């Protein structure tokens, strides 16, 4: 049997990671190298890249062209949006959210980071920790990406020296103390020549850690979801009204936190009525327990009125039920955030409206300083914002639960998503 034996494949895990770096950091080259060396590029794709490389007058096959997406980008030679790439090794399946690293594209980095288990941040070995490193790291911290891998790239241009690697590692570790990064791994690489990307480097015998691919294959991802606080946002009520399932009333949704078991006593928000889980249904069967991010259907012992936007929780472990919310907001639109402006708001499966009350400060993503003298929140700005909603939301701090701690803001005139927010842990209990 080949390495993709059918049994082995059925047992693989999924790792989603994001890559941040500018064109000059060799990010596209790194992804191209990762795909190429792990044999994930097909012949016809490689042929297309070869043709394009020759047309541009490049001497070597430009692996960066592998990840080039839309026509506009090919013309400008830069990546302008989030593109998703897929590859698999015998151990894991990977989804890459490939985002550009320019300052004006903070919104794309934030987008890519929102679903990632891991982030690769590239540092040019010649330049060390820069403003850009700071920006990428801040976003990884803000979006609470559980694992961060610092790739110190272009080691070939610093003669593969250990001191360069160690020096950057030390400086980064100092700098990152101000952030809330949970796990950091350092790998010295040359994306151009493939050192320590998939294969160990013969040029850096002093490095005894794993290659980048080895790190990606072995990161522990089982703990990335919250399995202690029970949260089940009701997404869709299933009522077959058929002869066979005449009185069936099931609550479809995706578990956002905690492990729910058959027989568990649950409380419905906002009504605060309690009942017991009668069954956890999936197609043609039942489960004894459900945990994130499973999509299941609950039936309850009692006939109570529950609809989309309600949340099933445990009585002794409630989320914050509040109309006053403070978030770290990333602004995604050309039209600035309007103080006292009203917006539509989506949080889990709940739709409400909100009014923006106050901008407490903006964050300079290059220096991490708080800005309080300019409170105009423009495209790509990140700010601490207070708002009030028309109806209560059931929220947790984002760092406790990425699903119940995140929300989006929509301009009601254009229907466009204009801002995204992460609930802070401050002020939640003051309620004002």
């Amino acid at each position, binding site marked *: 049997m080949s390495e993709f034996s059918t049994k082995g494949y059925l047992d693989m*895990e999924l790792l989603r990671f994001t890559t941040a770096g500018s064109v000059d950091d060799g990010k596209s080259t790194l992804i191209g190298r990762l795909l190429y060396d792990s044999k994930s590029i097909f012949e016809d794709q490689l042929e297309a890249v070869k043709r394009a490389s020759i047309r541009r007058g490049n001497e070597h096959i430009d692996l960066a062209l592998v990840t080039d997406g839309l026509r506009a980008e090919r013309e400008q030679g830069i990546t302008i949006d989030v*593109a998703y790439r897929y590859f698999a090794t015998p151990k894991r399946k990977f989804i890459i959210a490939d985002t550009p690293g320019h300052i004006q594209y903070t919104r794309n980095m934030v987008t890519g980071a929102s679903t990632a288990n891991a982030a690769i941040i590239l540092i040019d070995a010649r330049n060390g920790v820069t403003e850009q490193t700071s920006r990428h790291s801040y976003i990884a911290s803000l979006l609470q990406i559980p694992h961060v891998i610092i790739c110190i790239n272009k080691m070939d241009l610093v003669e593969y020296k250990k001191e360069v690697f160690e020096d950057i590692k030390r400086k980064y570790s100092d700098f990152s103390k101000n952030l809330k990064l949970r796990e950091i791994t350092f790998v010295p690489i040359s994306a151009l020549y493939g050192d320590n990307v998939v294969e160990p480097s013969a040029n850096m015998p002093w490095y005894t850690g794993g290659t980048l691919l080895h790190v990606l294959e072995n990161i522990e991802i089982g703990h990335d979801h919250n399995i202690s606080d029970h949260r089940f946002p009701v997404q869709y009520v299933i009522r077959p009204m058929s002869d066979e399932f005449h009185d069936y009333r099931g609550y479809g949704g995706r578990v956002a936190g905690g492990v729910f078991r058959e027989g568990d006593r649950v409380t419905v928000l906002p009504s605060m009525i309690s009942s017991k889980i009668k069954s956890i249904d999936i197609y043609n069967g039942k489960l004894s327990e459900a945990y994130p991010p499973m999509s299941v259907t609950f039936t309850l012992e009692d006939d109570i009125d529950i609809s989309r936007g309600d949340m099933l929780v445990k009585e002794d472990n409630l989320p914050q039920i509040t109309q006053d919310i403070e978030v770290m907001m990333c602004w995604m639109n050309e039209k600035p955030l309007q103080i006292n402006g009203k917006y539509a708001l989506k949080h889990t499966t709940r739709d409400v409206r909100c009014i923006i009350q106050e901008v407490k400060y903006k964050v300079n993503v290059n220096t991490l300083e708080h800005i309080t003298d300019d409170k105009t929140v423009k495209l790509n700005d990140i700010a601490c914002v207070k708002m009030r909603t028309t109806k209560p939301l059931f929220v947790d701090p984002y760092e406790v639960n990425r699903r119940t701690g995140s929300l989006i803001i929509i301009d009601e005139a254009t229907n466009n*998503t204009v801002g995204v927010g992460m609930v802070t842990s401050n002020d939640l209990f003051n309620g004002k």
Partner: protein
Amino acid sequence: MKNKYSLTHLEELEYESIYVMREVAAQFERPVLLFSGGKDSIVMTHLAVKAFWPGKMPFPLLHIDTGHNFEETMIYRDNLVKKLGVQLIVGSVQESIDTGRVVEETGVTASRNILQTTTLLDTIEKYKFDAAMGGGRRDEEKARAKERFFSHRDEFGQWDPKNQRPELWNIFNGRKNIGEHFRVFPISNWTEMDVWQYILKEQIELPEIYFTHQREVFNRDGVWMAKAPFMMLKENEFYETRMVRCRTIGDVSCTGLTLSTANSLEEIIQEIAATRITERGGRADDMRSEAAMEDRKKEGYF
């Protein structure tokens, strides 16, 4: 090594797709599931059954029929619809041609592939569908790699790749103005391999042409095409009988066949694991230019 509360990648992908489909049913008034008879739309239909069980899927299937179908696909489609008891709506490209909405391509490489866009948009408008779910996957093609799960279309059905709505976490914004609609891609994150593995895991029945069979074919620019009354041969092309199967199914005029003896799902999976050509490498429609897919998508293609 695995944590007690972890999932396999196929489970995680399935749960994600079910979540997206339920979100469509909740956020839209008249959703529809695009069904081509290909493996991706078959998997989509299977996921829809699972998402709403024990209820029925709350939307009909829509087949955009070029009239140039493999017979096996049509038999499969009709059986499936009967088995599930769902409504099937057919948008006919032939009808679009007959009523003068589109003009048929001529010449030996003529294909009705591009004409489908008009028929699709007309059908969406006629039935006032506000969300059309498709089996597009981001791994298929470069332009698709940037597609959102919820992809907004203006009143002309057009896609603007530079002005897509931000899509974060799993919060989907399906708000729109009257006359606009959404394309939704619940299996965005699946790869070709994932689809085949899932078909094996779930033991999903497929049209017979996915497995090896004897067929009269001809070779055009390195791609094997099926003999059919509406396919014309160029000079130097000739029919021969080969053992082939489909890796992907579009209509006959743009579906390349693979020389293969794979007779079971396990054999197909082994074959794909060993292949070094992408599945759309056999699609004549994508070879027209480097940005062929992007151009078609902007106009409202699947």
